[in-house]
């Protein structure tokens, strides 16, 4: 059985290898992960290949591109019981099954910043010397997440707020890696756009509390990662079995520290302790995938106009 996914999922440190072993032990099959560039690349590849695709299942689509993925007509209803799901939002979807989630958040360096802004508004009003590193919504998932976050909080006022934020932006990088590795880890700015779960990795594996996320009063934008069956699959039963397996503890326990996200079901005591120390947003912000699909281009143009002026 072939699964299209993204690189960090199958890398040696990702959840992939353990999941492969434990699923193969119960299915009498061979699981093949084909990792593509990114979440968007999975959809891209699926579209390019059309009905000739080898994929039986796609894993790692972002909720924001679900509507686009649905439009391809290449995905099939999952037909499994999703009542075990524990997400901050109510999930009802006939095609997509979530397997983890997290919030976009600003991660800050406690050694550079003792008193981070406690709201989006405070960040926008912050003095110019408080610099943040963002990612481009046209080329990165967190970048798009922040665009939607701003839009959710400010609606039509978003372009003005973007302009007000300009002075606080050190730079807008192409993707998360450049922002986090080349810039943030080099101490270029005290804050970077990332995930609320990022500090968990630093705390659990690097054993440092230096990097923390800051909770904004307006709430945080949600990211949900989903999987779906491919309509042309030769192994529909097996693929469905995998989707069911996804919502069991055997799969989910690999998520917190290997995918550095929240598990999609209640794992109870199996969640690492450091997850208790993560921020707990007062509100979950989320657009329906159709809304994102309908407005993404327009909102990106707004952002472009607001920031190039």
């Amino acid at each position, binding site marked *: 059985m072939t699964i299209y996914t993204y*690189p960090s999922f199958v890398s040696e440190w990702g959840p992939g290898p353990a999941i492969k072993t434990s699923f193969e032990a119960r299915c009498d099959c061979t699981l093949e992960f084909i*990792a593509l560039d990114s979440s968007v690349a999975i959809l891209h590849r699926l579209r390019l*290949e059309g009905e000739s695709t080898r994929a039986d299942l796609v894993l790692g689509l972002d909720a924001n591109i679900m509507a686009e993925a649905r439009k391809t007509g290449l995905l099939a209803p999952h037909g499994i019981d999703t009542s075990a799901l524990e997400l901050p939002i109510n999930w009802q979807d006939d095609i997509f099954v979530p397997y983890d989630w997290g919030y976009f958040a600003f991660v800050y360096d406690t050694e550079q910043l003792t008193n981070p802004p406690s709201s989006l508004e405070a960040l926008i009003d912050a003095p110019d010397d408080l610099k943040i590193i963002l990612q481009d919504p046209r080329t990165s998932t967190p970048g798009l997440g922040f665009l939607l976050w701003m839009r959710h909080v400010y609606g039509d006022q978003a372009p003005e707020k973007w302009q007000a934020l300009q002075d606080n932006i050190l730079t807008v990088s192409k993707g998360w890696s450049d922002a986090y590795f080349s810039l943030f880890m*080099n101490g270029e*700015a005290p804050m970077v756009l990332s995930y609320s779960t990022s500090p968990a990795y630093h705390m659990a594996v690097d054993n440092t509390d230096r990097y923390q996320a800051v909770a904004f009063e307006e709430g945080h934008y949600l990211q949900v990662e989903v999987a779906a069956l491919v309509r042309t699959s030769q192994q529909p039963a097996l693929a469905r079995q995998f989707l069911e397996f996804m919502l069991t503890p055997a799969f989910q326990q690999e998520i917190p520290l290997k995918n550095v996200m929240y598990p999609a079901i209640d794992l109870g005591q199996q969640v690492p302790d450091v997850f208790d120390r993560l921020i707990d947003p007062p509100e979950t912000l989320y657009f329906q995938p159709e809304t994102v699909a309908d407005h993404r281009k327009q909102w990106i143009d707004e952002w472009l106009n607001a920031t190039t002026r």
Partner: protein
Amino acid sequence: MAQRDYALIAPPLAHPAWRRWPGRIIALVLMIIVAAGFGGLLTEWQWQAVPALWQSAYLRQVIWFSIYQAAVSTALSLTLAIPVARALHRQSRFRGRGLLLRLTELSLVLPTIVAVFGLVAVYGRSGWFNALLETLGLPASWNLYGLQGILLAHVFFNAPLAARIMLQSMERIPANQWRLAAQLGLGSSAIWRALEWPALRRLLPGLAAFVFTLCFTSFAIVMTLGGGPKSTTVEVAIYQALRYEFDFSQAAVLAVVQLLICGSLWALASRQASAGSLMPGGTVSSDQWPRRDAMPAHRRDRLLLLVFTVFLLLPLVAVAVRGFPGLYGELTHTRLWTSLGRSLIVAVTAASLSIGFGLAILGASQSDTRSGRKWQSGFIEASGHLTLVVPALVLGTGLFVLLRPQLGNVSQGLALVTLINALMALPFVIQVLRGPFKAFDPRSLRLADQFNVRGWYRFRLLLLPLLKRPLLLGFAYAAGLSLGDFSVIALFGSPSSPTLPLLLYQQLSAYQLDDAAGTALVMLVLLFGIFFVLHRLGDGRSRYRQETPVPVRKQAHA
């Protein structure tokens, strides 16, 4: 007469067709591959995308900014390169010369993410440079982000390249002219007017076009250091259209814009350069004539070269400093060694292919030029430069669209990666080889014809000794370029069996930041190792001590 001799004893591959046809065939195949890749996108062409381009104020701004930053970057790089090349030529005994020459080679194949990491550590807000300013009590803190950051990075990448090419062209100035200059007692400025400037003037249009193209298509640097959407390039717009909008039509239109701008620049520059190729004399000065103006400028030159070396070295040192803690852990893991092995196989194969293509293309184009078939020769040369103006991403995606149902397993993907990497390196390999190819003394060649030294013998006995160093250098460039490739591998590679750059990205996305820094250092050491070893090989038995340098880099898209 040659025909009769040929009938008597025929050395292997002696038939004249062997010089022309492989190159012609390869040129044709390359044209077809690039046309196919481009055509793959063009099948999705929609005319609405053209007005959409002009109606968008944003895209107009992108095109304008691409041109503007590339022009300024080129001007700065060349301005810095001229004094550096002169100093390098004057001070042939400068102690750090070897190191500096290796650095000029290396900085051009550095993967952007590694280079940017180093540049930020040195010139960033909390980098060494600002710390130095502070200790010196200078209040002004330097800001890396924005146009100045882009320019700094582009100068870091391109000034060494330009200096290297200029040095090469100065070394082509025949020894008797230097002797004459020495006898006439010409000073520094007179030498500049009489010898150096005429040599450089022929070179500059082509060189400028070349550097401009590299800066114009720059992507990751511009995105990371540019600050935001105010400073993006056409490449970003292409990437965005391909990767996020699935808008092949828009991507194709933008790629055509890029092709028109860079292609017409090339055409213009190569027309200029062909006039300049009527260089006096064919022999390459083997031993450098000691320059009379070397002594007076001794101190100034040394200072300049020292500063330039530090400028190139610092970001690399920074990568080493940051990478060292993670290095030990990395070296004990098999994943590093397997990725390294995979990378090396791809790199060596791609480099060999590239060298083979380059030789065939130059051979054919030279033979066509000699026989007065200008059009064919131009066509063949152009085929080798196509990938400079067609973005790797466009080529890759286009080929993918065409090949889609067939592509599957890891080795097919890697084979395609190897082929595209070879194509991407080809323009640079050709640049390296072209000079020495042109430098063959026509009289010796005629003599060789008379004695029927042709084909394989001719290559081995006559051409190889002269070509050995450029060949090794071209090989090093092509291999280095392939080792650092992020864009093509991301399209076709299989992340479960990564190459070195892919491993780096995987580590980054899994927060293995120390390991990632270690991997970046390994890449750096590997690149340095390749250049060092190949340089030594080239030095060893080369009969002509001749500096034959040149260029390369490609921006990573991933």
